[in-house]
């Protein structure tokens, strides 16, 4: 506040000018002074004080009642001054926390990075976009020593920081599993225990795990309460829901998971997703499953990666560029 002195002279001369001319230019000057003060963290009561001093200087015979009234006004400004200082603190904190979250989101990107494996005779597309900076969706590809391809898709209830924290658990637990030799049902069983032990009961995670064997075209899968994906039958040109029953992760430590299987034929597709895709909302309206399939069908002639990109862009626009939930979509085309 060492800058107040020259400002005081400036204020006084602008005020005198304004009283004499009542011109817009002086009022513009008033605005500029006050913006300058705000920038320098000068609280509003200082302005009132400056005003009082300027008045007294300009009118040495200022009536006493006016002087008293200005002291009263000054008193009301003190609480605004406290609020104003808190405002500055809040701005600083806000920008700190924003950059903190950006760092964390970055870490999460590194953490959840998964490489789309290249597999002969299988075209893979994957897109995963968080609604906020941090994601509560997870997907991961595992190449097994037996030549199989494991695909995990999971969704933590909720979004944002808590979901992201929970998500990292799935990542580390998956890491500690023996490389791709376990079957879907055993993987879910194991992860279920980890989640149950580490996360309180209000939080849970849904997960779909599929394992594909390129040689036989066989796909094994199990679900822990996860949003069902779709199976596209090329021969009959039909989509069908991939039904799989199973309790969400983290509820009961003794849950066993059923395992399903199916054979993929030439041209068939498997579509895995999170509810951020199927529960897209347009305004207040939830879209129908049929609409999702229509959009997918529209782009199904494209390469898998281009296909999921186009589907994502379609729904992003539909939602006014503001995702309400994390969005993950994976397509396997044989």
């Amino acid at each position: 506040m060492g800058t107040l002195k020259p400002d005081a002279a400036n204020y006084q001369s602008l005020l005198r000018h304004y009283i004499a001319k009542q011109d817009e230019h002086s009022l513009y000057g008033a605005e500029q002074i006050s913006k300058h003060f705000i920038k320098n963290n000068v609280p509003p009561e200082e302005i009132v004080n400056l005003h009082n001093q300027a008045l007294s200087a300009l009118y040495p015979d200022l009536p006493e009642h006016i002087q008293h009234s200005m002291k009263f006004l000054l008193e009301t400004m003190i609480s605004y001054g406290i609020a104003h200082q808190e405002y500055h603190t809040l701005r600083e904190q806000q920008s700190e926390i924003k950059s903190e979250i950006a760092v964390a989101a970055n870490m999460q990107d590194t953490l959840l990075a998964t490489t789309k494996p290249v597999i002969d005779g299988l075209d893979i597309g994957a897109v995963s976009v968080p609604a906020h900076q941090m994601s509560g969706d997870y997907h991961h590809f595992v190449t097994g020593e037996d030549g199989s391809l494991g695909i995990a898709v999971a969704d933590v209830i909720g979004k944002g920081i808590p979901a992201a924290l929970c998500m990292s658990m799935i990542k580390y637990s998956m890491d500690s599993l023996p490389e791709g030799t376990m079957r879907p049902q055993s993987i879910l069983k194991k992860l279920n225990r980890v989640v149950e032990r580490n996360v309180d009961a209000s939080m849970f995670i849904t997960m779909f795990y599929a394992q594909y064997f390129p040689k036989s075209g066989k796909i094994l899968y199990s679900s822990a309460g996860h949003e069902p994906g779709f199976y596209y039958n090329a021969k009959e040109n039909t989509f069908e829901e991939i039904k799989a029953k199973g309790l969400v992760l983290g509820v009961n430590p003794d849950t066993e998971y059923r395992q399903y299987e199916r054979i993929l034929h030439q041209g068939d597709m498997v579509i895995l997703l999170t509810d951020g895709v199927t529960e897209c909302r347009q305004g207040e309206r939830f879209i129908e499953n049929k609409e999702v399939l229509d959009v997918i069908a529209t782009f199904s002639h494209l390469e898998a990666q281009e296909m999921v990109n186009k589907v994502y862009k379609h729904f992003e626009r539909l939602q006014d560029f503001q995702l309400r939930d994390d969005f993950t979509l994976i397509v396997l085309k044989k």
Partner: protein
Amino acid sequence: MDLQSCVTIEKEWDIVKARQLGREVAQEAGFGTVDQARIATAISELARNIYLYTNSGKLCFEIIDNVEQKGISMLSIDDGPGIEDISQVMEDGYSTSGGLGAGLPGVKRLVDQFDIQSEKGKGTEIRAVKWAR
């Protein structure tokens, strides 16, 4: 609809001219002293953006007189570089003028309706409406 009055913004002095014109229109529309001051401050901000970031632009004022309410419409049009990320510019704390508590979010706070359209390389159009109470 009343007639529309505009001020072309080229030098800093034009900001004052725009404030003056806007304040007159506001007074005519029946705004009190506080709201006139708010309108002048909003105009400063809009005019300053044109002055600082574009080659040319103008501010136009208009009294809106519906059956239900009376107000002022402020229209800012420029052929500047346009705003690439509108969401970002409308975020608190992200002020191009680098100052505190100002920028377009400040204008939005001072008025009742605020609409912004911008195309990269073509310019920006901002319409702000304030209703007299």
